[in-house]
């Protein structure tokens, strides 16, 4: 990294906001690695020395034998607290985020993450609660988990909930393991080997089926963007273990034949699994458990506003029907002393119930086992519980109404400039196609996404779902004001105009971001996955950008 070229205040217009990165002498590095800031013996944190008494007593105990001791200390960076903080603050400045600007990333429900949730998760009584503390010391944590599970049951219409799965895909894995356990219990484990997945599904659905040893079979969509009922019925048979369906779908469309879909699946003896990624559109309007589904995973980080954290942590609890309940992961927080109805009424009024006691029920012989250590991402439970209680029944309904209204508003405001392959009522999101821009002006959806970056907005999800050519998947959520939506409409229209008048300009984007389009092919061909310390050659610095004519795909 010793090549020096022109400073960043160049024609690209990049950098003024990011140029505080003192310390690196390579002007082509936006912010040096923390390793490059390291100076021997610099410290940020010190620890006390052990007392003489402690040392003396410790010396009577067996030492760690030399044979297991490390000979060279790990080369962790040696930095001051201020250098450390500045480094990460500068890195923070390189990120787009909900708290900075509009982030309509389809299928991810990037809504505002209320700050009272963070306040709650940091309460010492919750944050410092050890998962293996005696149950008598953890009644608050157990009560919170029980209350959240009760609320999720109400919201989804399922008869039981496990909070254990750590993410949506993890909930899918849990659900498919349960489906298999269910069929095995009925003596059909050997016979049912297939899982049906619509072609509009997230990649996690077929990948999950494989992880559980099932064969994923793709079901095509019909011309209206729904699951093709004929194709589904043809595929259903005594060899089918489950249908995994996302509803509303990844096209942002409610499966308006969902009643027939569920009935057909049940009739064939299979398990009906709903991917609940898009629950934000249907709160209070559609309860999958009530509609006959057997299993659904929630994404607490989507619907219930726990922050996405740059990719996690999330939480993916599952709700199940009565016939699947015995197979839920163990343990489950249970009210062991006290009356549930009385307890619920008190909790609603913010009162504790004297004499009530919670315990973890681990005596579940038909359970699929555990899918995660301890009980799940508890910190996310705190945030989701806070959010659900803050919104309450009316607030949750408003969330879906406003999210759906915003998506439909964007659909109407943009469908004259971008193609809309499935022009139907939208639920949480709307999927446009950039095929017109590609065909007429050679501007791809990737180019459009990069142009959006120059307006300070995070682009929609692109190239997904796979069944839409040049897809642009826009999920505005309920927390964006009309001014923000209108601004986005203006930006999208302006880019469409520019694609026609000056396509090369769109293809040059982005110009205002800390880095330009990155060479993903070079990254994958010669992977550089960790810092190379001086003198090391096994993790070489990336070669200078190869002149690849083709733009990388995000």
């Amino acid at each position, binding site marked *: 990294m010793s090549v020096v070229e022109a400073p960043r205040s160049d024609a690209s217009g990049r950098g003024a906001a990011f140029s505080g990165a003192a310390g690196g002498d390579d002007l082509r590095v936006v912010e040096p690695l923390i390793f490059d800031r390291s100076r021997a013996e610099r410290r940020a944190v010190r620890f006390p020395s052990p007392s003489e008494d402690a040392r003396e007593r410790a010396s009577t105990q067996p030492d760690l034998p030399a044979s297991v001791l490390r000979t060279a200390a790990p080369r962790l960076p040696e930095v001051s607290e201020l250098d450390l903080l500045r480094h990460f603050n500068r890195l923070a400045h390189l990120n787009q985020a909900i708290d900075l600007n509009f982030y309509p990333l389809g299928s991810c429900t990037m809504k505002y993450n209320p700050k009272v949730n963070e306040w709650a998760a940091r309460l010492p009584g919750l944050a410092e609660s050890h998962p293996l503390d005696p149950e008598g010391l953890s009644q608050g944590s157990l009560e919170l988990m029980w209350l959240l599970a009760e609320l999720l049951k109400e919201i989804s219409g399922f008869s039981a909930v496990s909070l254990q799965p750590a993410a949506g895909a993890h909930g899918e894995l849990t659900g498919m393991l349960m489906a298999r356990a269910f069929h095995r219990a009925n003596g059909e484990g050997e016979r049912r080997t297939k899982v049906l997945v619509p072609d509009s599904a997230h990649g996690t659905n077929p990948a999950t089926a494989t992880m559980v040893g099932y064969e994923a079979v793709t079901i095509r969509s019909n011309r209206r963007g729904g699951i093709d009922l004929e194709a589904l019925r043809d595929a259903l048979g005594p060899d089918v273990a489950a249908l995994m369906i996302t509803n509303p779908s990844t096209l942002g469309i409610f499966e308006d034949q969902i009643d027939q879909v569920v009935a057909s699946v049940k009739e064939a003896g299979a398990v009906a699994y709903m991917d609940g990624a898009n629950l934000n559109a249907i709160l209070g309007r559609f309860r999958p458990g009530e509609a006959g589904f057997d299993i659904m995973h929630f994404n607490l980080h989507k619907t219930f506003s726990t922050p996405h954290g740059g990719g996690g942590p999330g939480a993916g609890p599952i709700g199940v029907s009565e016939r699947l309940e015995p197979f839920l992961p163990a343990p489950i927080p249970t009210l062991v002393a006290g009356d549930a109805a009385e307890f619920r009424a008190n909790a609603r009024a913010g009162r504790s119930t004297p004499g009530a006691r919670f315990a973890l029920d681990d005596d579940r012989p038909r359970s699929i086992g555990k899918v995660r250590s301890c009980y799940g991402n508890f910190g996310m439970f705190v945030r989701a519980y806070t959010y659900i209680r803050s919104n309450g029944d009316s607030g949750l309904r408003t969330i879906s109404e406003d999210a759906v209204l915003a998506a439909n508003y964007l659909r109407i405001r943009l469908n004259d400039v971008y193609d809309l392959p499935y022009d139907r009522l939208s639920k949480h999101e709307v999927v446009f196609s950039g095929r017109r821009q590609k065909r007429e002006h050679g501007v791809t959806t990737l180019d459009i996404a990069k142009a959006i970056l120059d307006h300070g907005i995070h682009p929609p999800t692109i190239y997904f779902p796979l069944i839409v050519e040049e897809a642009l998947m826009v999920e505005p959520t309920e927390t964006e004001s009309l001014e923000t939506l209108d601004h986005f409409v203006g930006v999208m229209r302006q880019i469409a105009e520019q694609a026609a008048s000056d396509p090369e300009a769109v293809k040059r984007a982005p110009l205002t971001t800390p880095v330009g389009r990155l060479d993903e092919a070079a990254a994958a061909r010669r992977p550089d996955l960790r810092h190379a310390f001086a003198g090391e050659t096994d993790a070489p610095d990336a070669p200078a950008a190869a002149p690849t004519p083709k733009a990388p*795909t995000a």
Partner: protein
Amino acid sequence: MSHPDDLAYSREHEWVRVEDGRATIGITSFAANELGDIVFVELPEVGATLTQFGTFGVVESVKAVSDLYAPVSGEVIEVNEALRDAPELMNSDPFGEGWIAKVELGDRSELDALLDAAGYAAETA
């Protein structure tokens, strides 16, 4: 897009060149374009036996992954080691330096099931 006349083509976008009873196999320029920047190819092992239209490897690009299907049957006698470090050869020279494997051709009549350049061009038009 031009397809060399001296090759035979499969509908799965592999080509084969037969010389002295040995078949050299690769993917077509059409396939390479569709995949985009190729970043990795999983080569078969020397000595492995390929079955016509059976899978024998995997090719990955930045945005896609695809199985490789053998256009003919036979035992692998050589693989293109250069692709391990430079998979981009499959993009830059798919019919030449981007070849994948050479096999001892078992049954010449299998070639009858393949397309000629004109037929393949029509297929991918």
